[in-house]
């Protein structure tokens, strides 16, 4: 199944800026991209990012085992946004290097735990998680009715110039 993730260049820029802000105690920041899906041929899926929902400063937990740990309010607010705005939600964070990033063990374990929770509020939409690097991206997408996530095949930054990440 081909999954193509598109994000407007300006949105990508603002997401990167937002996630690079220092936090009082968390080593990194996380957030959610609000997206809308569309079908492509041969069961392909297009995910279209349109807005960014930042996790508020006060919604991080002190946890030395991870760079950033979201508290229950962070998840609740993201669920509320998905419900109110009828959107797919894609968790997002950065790995500050160039080239193709990948999920760490913690990324894989934690996203598998909380991403399917978005089906409680938007059961017919795909949800997922992505990690950005300085010039690339990697992600997984959970489709309704599927057991596990599928890898996102392609990332496109829509702007001037058009760029595959």
């Amino acid at each position, binding site marked *: 199944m081909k999954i193509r993730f598109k994000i*407007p260049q300006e949105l990508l820029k603002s997401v990167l800026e937002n996630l690079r802000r220092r936090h009082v105690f968390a080593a990194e920041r996380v957030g959610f991209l609000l997206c*809308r899906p569309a079908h492509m*041929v041969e069961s392909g899926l297009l995910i*279209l990012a349109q*807005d960014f929902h930042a996790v508020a400063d006060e919604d991080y937990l002190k946890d030395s085992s991870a760079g950033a740990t979201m508290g229950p309010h962070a998840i609740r607010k993201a669920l509320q946004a998905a419900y109110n705005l009828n959107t797919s939600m894609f968790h997002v964070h950065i790995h500050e290097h160039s080239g193709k990033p990948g999920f760490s063990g913690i990324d894989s374990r934690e996203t598998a735990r909380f991403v399917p929770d978005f089906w409680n509020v938007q059961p017919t*939409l795909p949800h997922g998680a992505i990690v950005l690097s300085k010039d690339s991206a990697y992600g997984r997408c959970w489709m309704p*009715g599927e057991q596990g996530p599928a890898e996102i095949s392609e990332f496109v930054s829509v702007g001037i*110039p*058009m760029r595959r990440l």
Partner: protein
Amino acid sequence: MRDKISRLIRLDRQSFLGPDSADILDVCCAAIIGLGGGGSHINQQLAHLGVGNPAIVDPDKVEETNLNRLVGATEEDVALERSKVFAAERLIRAVNPWAHVISHKDNWQDHADELRSCDIIFGCVDSFIEREQLETFARRHLIPYIDIGMDVHRVEGSFSISGQVAVSMPGGPCLRCLGIITDERLRQEAQRYNAAGGKPQVVWPNGLLASAAVGMFVKLFTPWEKEIKFPILLEYDGDAQTLMPSNKLKYLSGYCPHFEGLHNVGDPFFGFRLVASDGAPLSKGK
């Protein structure tokens, strides 16, 4: 491997477009909607550029009256009542045999799922209502849309040629912002619906506008030009033989009020396809 080397040799003279430009163009899916005077020129140029995944859509057959401007079409196509997409695909394959061509002798609306995966759409359609539909479709799927149009007007007993090329980028000014689509034009067009007779058309303005559109596409997708001034609206004055940035650009804010908001993106019926009649999400194979 031999094919790739042949392809790269063929594109050697355009290597200044950037070190990866051949590969960028090879994986690019460029849709051309409408293969008349303008679209057939664009089709030919994309084939020469090495665009690897062209998608061409037009419901019409080649007619005698098309031969004054339809690049690649022949008398035989008219005699055998071949479609415009047939003529366009034949031209692509003659120039770029490695291309993966998607072609439909049909209305583009019937192939929306395929067109959603395109990287760019060239709109070469005749009517304003179809332009509006096509731009809305492109915006909904974050696809850059390049629109070309030309017209021949009767002015005080003589004929005057004009036209334009516009780039509609997601988030930027749209065809309404640029003054190309207006309610008045849509109203006038609706009144003329089914009026007899074809619009006057000639080959060279189509070629000029198509070339400008292809140039913008190349600027958007290859590393050739570092800084591109947006928005882009070029106006063609056929009498003065000039193609100039429109004065309207001076008064644009850069903000588009016509396509803002989450509800204007993605498939509005997405969820409905995945829900069974009992309201439960459909599982795989159900």
